[in-house]
């Protein structure tokens, strides 16, 4: 098999696996553009099990599966499933494994997707396991960056926001380091990236990672933002101060490179000013659209 049997963590992937997805994603995007009918998943059933709410990830997986000719099984409301009757996670996975050919799972507990992969015979894709991993988001982020910049190696990428709790940022740091980007981490005090993760990518990939507490974008090629959640602070005054300080406005991006792009996993609330949405730097809507071709590429690589 060219790809992995289960897609659980970015740590399981080598560069050749990611390269394969980047290449396939581009083919899928092209096929979508030309309206070419694809049927590599025809006759297959894809189950999307979202034990936690999700709009983008769930819908884009379902859309991607349908566009490859698969049928989709899903429960959207945990309240309407047997989970409320006390059924264990493991029983749900075993049962759904018998009903489908591929399982996409999102669950609040860290390691849940890995456990599901142990239980299921069919391939499992991690759609987010608590604060741990969200590998398909990372693949789509890497694809978006490569698509916009034609390369990843040597780019100056700034990751900004709550780097402590955002699983997206952890996986992305790993992926960027693997491809040799220079990474700058900017986070409010107390919400910095886990030291262990920084140490790991430095040791594994000899990555150039620097940490800062203020925003300086003059050298940045890609600015990747994530939300700073108010509920992370015990002091609401402090929360508002930090949110204001880390908000991206027209003023913040003054002096940035002409071709700097801004990415965001969405949903965003008020961390980006409306004038930035309208600027040529805003690339997050484009990024969200890439969810379809990238998830098509992933499922195609896993099932076919």
């Amino acid at each position, binding site marked *: 098999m060219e790809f992995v049997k289960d897609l659980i963590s970015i740590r399981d992937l080598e560069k050749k696996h990611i390269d394969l997805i980047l290449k396939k994603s581009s083919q899928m995007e092209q096929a979508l553009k030309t309206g070419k009918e694809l049927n590599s998943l025809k006759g297959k059933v894809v189950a999307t099990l979202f034990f936690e709410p999700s709009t983008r990830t769930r819908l884009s997986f379902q859309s991607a599966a349908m566009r490859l000719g698969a049928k989709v099984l899903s429960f959207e409301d945990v309240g309407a499933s047997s989970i409320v009757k006390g059924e*264990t996670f493991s029983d749900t996975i075993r049962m759904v494994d018998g009903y489908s050919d591929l399982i996409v799972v999102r669950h609040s*507990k860290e*390691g849940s997707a890995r456990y599901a992969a142990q239980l299921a015979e069919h391939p499992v894709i991690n759609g987010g396991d608590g*604060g741990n991993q969200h590998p398909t988001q990372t693949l789509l982020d890497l694809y978006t960056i490569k698509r916009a910049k034609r390369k990843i190696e040597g780019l100056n990428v700034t990751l900004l926001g709550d780097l402590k709790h955002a699983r997206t940022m952890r996986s992305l740091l790993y992926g960027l380091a693997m491809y040799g980007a220079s990474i700058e981490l900017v986070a409010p005090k107390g919400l910095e990236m886990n030291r262990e993760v920084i140490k790991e990518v430095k040791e594994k990939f000899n990555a150039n990672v620097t940490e800062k507490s203020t925003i300086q974008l003059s050298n940045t090629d890609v600015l990747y933002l994530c939300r700073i959640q108010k509920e992370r602070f015990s002091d609401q005054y402090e929360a508002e101060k930090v949110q204001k300080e880390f908000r991206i406005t027209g003023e913040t991006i003054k002096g940035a490179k002409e071709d700097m792009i801004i990415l965001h996993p969405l949903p965003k609330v008020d961390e980006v000013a409306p004038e930035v949405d309208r600027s040529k730097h805003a690339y997050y809507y484009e990024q969200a659209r890439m969810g379809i071709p990238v998830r098509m590429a992933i499922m195609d690589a896993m099932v076919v």
Partner: protein
Amino acid sequence: MPLVVEKIESGTVIDHIPAGMGLKVLEILKIDRNYGARVALMMNVPSKKIGKKDIVKVEGKTLDDKAVNKIALIAPNATLNIIKNSEVVEKKIVQLPKELRGVSKCPNPQCITNFEPIETLFKIENHAEMKFRCFFCEMAFEAKELLL
């Protein structure tokens, strides 16, 4: 004056335990006041190798792999002497295992292993720093954190 402790007839002597960790070793071996046979714990014994050490002698006990792996987490250089008929029949040096299966709970409260009936699994991440990574939640921990 040297300390003289009677020989045991059959059982295990665990030597070169870092000073202060002997009690923890007894805890790992689940030895308490209800354990019927002879047990000796010597603390702060001078050692050429490690300065000061603890020694544990337990009669009538052989250690399974799980117990040896647990001891390795707090005493990675300990030696095990297996005694039969008052003779040392086997000498083993404890080594930090490559993986720990079912040895410890995952310290991450959000880890799925704390909610579902799963045997925990930690894989060695860094030998020199004695760090292990949970196979499920992917968090890395120091060996001593796994015994808390």
